[in-house]
């Protein structure tokens, strides 16, 4: 299944390279090219095609490999790309949050102490761009291939190293800040309302038994005290 992303990436690269226009056309090209790609299998409604508003093909391959590694297909949920976690991340980066909404972006820029929080002169979208490039450079140097092409066990080792601060990006953004952002976004994609592109078919909510937006529990507090409350979760768009 992980080959889907790689194949599509190759396909997109060739589509762009083969086009007459400059590299900046990758977005419409991707949209156009997608129907020819392999249709991902999924439970319930079919997953929309993986088209991207922000991520370039290399970044898309990284994010797809990341979310499928962190959220593999198993008895709990389909894999990350089938849940739309890649779509969630892409939309977050293309939208206000990715562009630095509610983020003070004036200098002077200093590294600061960990207790002073985020101090990078990068919007989240810029952090992804530079972080993915640095991560792939590290993987090529260490494993001979970019993150999306290394083995499952190498991905595991790399991500654990990133999380623990053992992986360092020379002259790049701080690896731990990059990792913390990736991890937070994967969790958001898994558990945020499906209107944001992730948590497709409310699979994240079903996994833990979260009932969603309908929450009239005045009587349920007593009725279900220490009892399982099982309902099919309802999302914002289910009620709209």
């Amino acid at each position, binding site marked *: 299944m992980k080959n889907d992303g790689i194949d599509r990436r190759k396909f997109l690269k060739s589509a762009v390279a083969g086009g007459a226009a400059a590299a900046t056309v990758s977005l419409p090209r991707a949209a156009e090219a997608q129907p020819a790609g392999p249709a991902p299998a999924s439970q319930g409604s079919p997953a929309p095609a993986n088209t991207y508003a922000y991520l370039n093909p290399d970044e898309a391959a990284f994010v797809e490999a990341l979310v499928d590694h962190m959220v593999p297909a198993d008895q709990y949920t389909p894999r990350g790309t089938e849940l739309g976690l890649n779509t969630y991340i892409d939309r977050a980066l293309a939208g206000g949050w990715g562009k630095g909404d*509610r983020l003070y972006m004036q200098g002077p820029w200093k590294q600061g102490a960990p*207790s002073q929080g985020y101090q990078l002169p990068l919007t989240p979208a810029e952090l992804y761009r530079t972080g993915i490039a640095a991560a792939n450079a590290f993987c090529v140097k260490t494993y001979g291939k970019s993150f999306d092409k290394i083995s499952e066990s190498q991905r595991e080792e790399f991500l654990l190293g990133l999380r623990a601060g053992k992986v360092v990006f020379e002259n790049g953004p701080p690896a731990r800040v990059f990792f913390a952002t990736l991890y937070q976004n994967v969790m958001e994609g898994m*558990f945020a309302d499906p209107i944001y592109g992730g948590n497709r078919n409310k699979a994240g909510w079903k996994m833990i038994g*979260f009932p969603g937006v*309908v929450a009239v529990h005045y009587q*349920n*507090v007593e009725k279900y005290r220490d009892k399982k409350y099982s309902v099919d979760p309802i999302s914002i768009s289910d009620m709209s």
Partner: protein
Amino acid sequence: MATKMKEVDVVIVGLGWTGGILAKELSAAGLKVVALERGGQRSTEADFSVPAVRDELRYVVRHDLMMNTQKDTITIRNNVSQEALPMRRLGSFLPGDVVGGSGVHWSGHTWRWTDMEFKVRSLYEERYGKKSIPEDMTIQDWGISYGELEPYYDKFEYTAAVSGKAGNIRGKILPGGNPFEAPRARDYPLPPLTPVLAQEMFKAAALNSGYHPFPRPSANASRAYTNPDGSRFGACQYCGHCQRFGCEANAKGSAHITVIPIAMRSPNFELRTHAWVTKVLKDSSGKRVTGVTYTNVLNGEEFEQPAAMVLLTAYAINNVHLMLLSGIGQPYDPASQKGVIGKNYCYQTGASATLFFEGRHFNPFMNAGGSSTTIDDFNANWNFDRGKQGYVGGFIVAGAFNTALPIGYRPVPGGTPPWGTAWKAATAKWYDTAMQINMSGSVMANRYNYYDLDPTYRNAFGLPMMRMTFDYKENEHKIGRHAAQVINDIAKSMNPTRLNPAVARTEPWTVVPYQSTHNTGGTMMGTNPKTSALNKYLQSWDCHNLFSVGANVFPHNAVYNPTGPVGALAYWTADAIKNRYMKNPGPLVSA
């Protein structure tokens, strides 16, 4: 050039709970009142309705109702030798940025602070000796008594629809309430909320340990309610989306459904939203203020609003910031310990344990903001001997649920892998079968915890940002260690399948993650202009027609949430203005 507006009697800066209470009271007393609020208007119908309001990403993670750091933030550091840097994104605390202020998105916990705080230095010195208070601990008495404030607490509790159980009515200790609370004239307006399983289990364990559990008083209406002003509340639906959300059921005590709409009906009151106050103006003598300047943030137009009185009722940090920006009072200097504006900034401390019980069902999505059963044995209980522990202050411990939504709340036992099938298995298993026991601890004032203006960073108006210098001191670490031990003893007595124990904090204060929106101090109330910014009526010692109401007036931070005394002090100040100041404008206390 700023457009000069027609003079009014009162200009209110910031329209949340305190501004709303003063707007209602003073416009009803016949004063012409203008409120300037930097945020916009939101309504239950348009903004807090299902399904759109049930959006954890928008409200909890992306802070939709909160101040926007792109326009204004503060700089932060742990000590005076560090270089302060901007809080570029919100984290540790979340000031609101809408009409109604942080009272829109709070949980509703409403406590009565007592003489244990108001007479803190006197009481500790009397019982434990002068040496019991460390040299750098700049705590002082507040200049007000619980007896003076009691009727105003009552007024706020009945306005805000507080649900709870009295533990002490006029000295009579009542079963089921907090036996350590100060005497109250009457019970809460509403009975306690229906407890959730975590509360019931904590209650049993606390009783077994010899403690005195009670339902935490909270402004979540346990049934439909009409307050004395005629404002109507729905019953709380335990929707699990309380903290950081507006209330869909109008069940949460909030200014935007109570005092503000009443003020809006008065011909004496005018609200201007998106009005960002940049300065309080003084006359040539420096002893009176003459109004404020503000910018309409929708179009950049600048205004001057002359007023006979100025009330600073914005978020606590912003009230202090305006005093510093306007040159009112002497800024505090930690080296010389001279000056008062910015002094005694305090925060709170916390810790929690997660208990995992195979086979139990906690339904973490069913709770009210105030779903909390609490013990006060290590705080309001003055018989608890601090001498053995060697600290000033204390802590409360609670079994509670509040806004346990899945992006932010996914308890798993320590050692669980961070992703993959094993992570999913644990997350799926424990979401419904875990609960928490948490504590909130006091922070005593310290010489080196304070605010001043940042020398480098500026906000969107070109004004120096507020600089916050703060860290926990040994007193807080002692409280944290003791509280963690109490939590873990209770937790172990409950025999959980697995336990992530509470761990006392040792790291410096950090700007992430979220901790508490209880920032206090900076313009203290007190008895002497040399050691406080405001007198007991929250009137500036320097300019008698300037008042400031908010947690910025607290000389230290207690264990409890601050909104109870903040609301009571707003009514107290409204009475002082109506009954005393209007008759004879001038200092209400002679310096």
